[in-house]
């Protein structure tokens, strides 16, 4: 877990996709609603505490927030809503469904090297076999084996023909 630096909120590595952000936003909204209702409730009436998920918990823990404080709650909500609207997102396609460990390692690297609030969208393209394709807003970066082979066609051709000549 990373810690808050310079007063800015940090995004935990468990929040990876926009769906995760939406979920956290809904949970924060539920807490906000609960607190508003609590301020209006009369004594003795039953209270249904809102449930918080692991994502929100990680976010709170990472940023050491107290959501019972209006300022913290508002800050968290603003941060998450802003992420909902403007979070930098990249789309990465793999040939198979990546494991959670793999995604975790990948998001750590991306947050550390690309952008600290980067979100991911994971896609599947079985014909990639090896590697991945990264798509940003305007660009596409093909890191697949097919692209790699195409870029090194001369080497591949040389190896193939050497192999054929050796067999002949």
């Amino acid at each position, binding site marked *: 877990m990373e810690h808050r630096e310079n007063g800015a909120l940090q995004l935990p590595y468990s929040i990876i996709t926009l769906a995760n952000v939406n979920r956290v936003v809904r949970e924060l909204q539920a807490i906000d609603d609960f607190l508003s209702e609590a301020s209006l409730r009369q004594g003795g009436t039953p209270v249904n505490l809102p449930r918080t998920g692991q994502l929100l918990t990680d976010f709170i823990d990472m940023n050491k927030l107290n959501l019972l404080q209006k300022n913290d709650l508002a800050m968290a909500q603003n941060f998450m809503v802003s992420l909902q609207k403007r979070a*930098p997102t*990249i789309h990465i396609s*793999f*040939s*198979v469904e*990546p*494991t959670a*460990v*793999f995604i975790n*390692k*990948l998001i750590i*690297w*991306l947050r550390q*090297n*690309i*952008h600290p609030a*980067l979100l991911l969208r994971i896609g599947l393209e*079985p*014909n990639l*076999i*090896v*590697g*991945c394709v*990264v798509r*940003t*807003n*305007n*660009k596409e*970066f093909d*890191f*697949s*084996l*097919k*692209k790699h*082979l*195409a870029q090194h*066609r001369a080497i*591949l*051709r040389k190896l*193939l023909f050497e192999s054929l000549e050796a067999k002949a």
Partner: protein
Amino acid sequence: MTLWELIAAAVVIIALGILTVLVFFPSSSTSKKKHKKGKQPAEADLNEAVGENILHIFDDRYREELKNRGRLQFQEVLTQNAMFLQQDLRLTASQLNEYVQGEISKKLQEEFAKYDQAIDDAKNIALSSIQKINKAIEEGRQILDQQIEKELAQSKQRIIQHFEANMAEIVNHYILTAIGGQIDLNSQLEFILADLEANKKAIIEDITNGA
């Protein structure tokens, strides 16, 4: 010699026989009468008597005898001539046979020679034709071989070009077919991060400045 010639010869012979009989016998009787007159009067008288009665001597019987002799002689001549004729006919037939055989043989030999020549010519023509056909077939085969070799070379070149153009996809497809179900992303992480690192600047720029 024809039958008409034989008949004419027979008529001539008969006529000669009659003339001989008529001419020869009177002269002989006259000479005998002269000869005898000089010797004896009795004989002369006799001769005169005979001369006077010549018609009595050469009576019908005598003439009949002469006729018979002439007939016999004529028959003999006829027989001889018939025999000669038969011999001539046999000889002629034999010669004719030989001639005909010779002519037929000659003709047959000529025809056989022509036939042999015709067969030889036909054989030569057939051989020439077969040689021409073989030559044409050989030329056609060579042309076909060249075309096939050319087509094969072009086809090979096309396949190689196609393969080279789509080599990456072909190898990719091969790998996908071979090990597509055994891909482990964790083992690729290092290479993916290396690629991301190589394109880090471009990604950051696009994220920062992109719409």
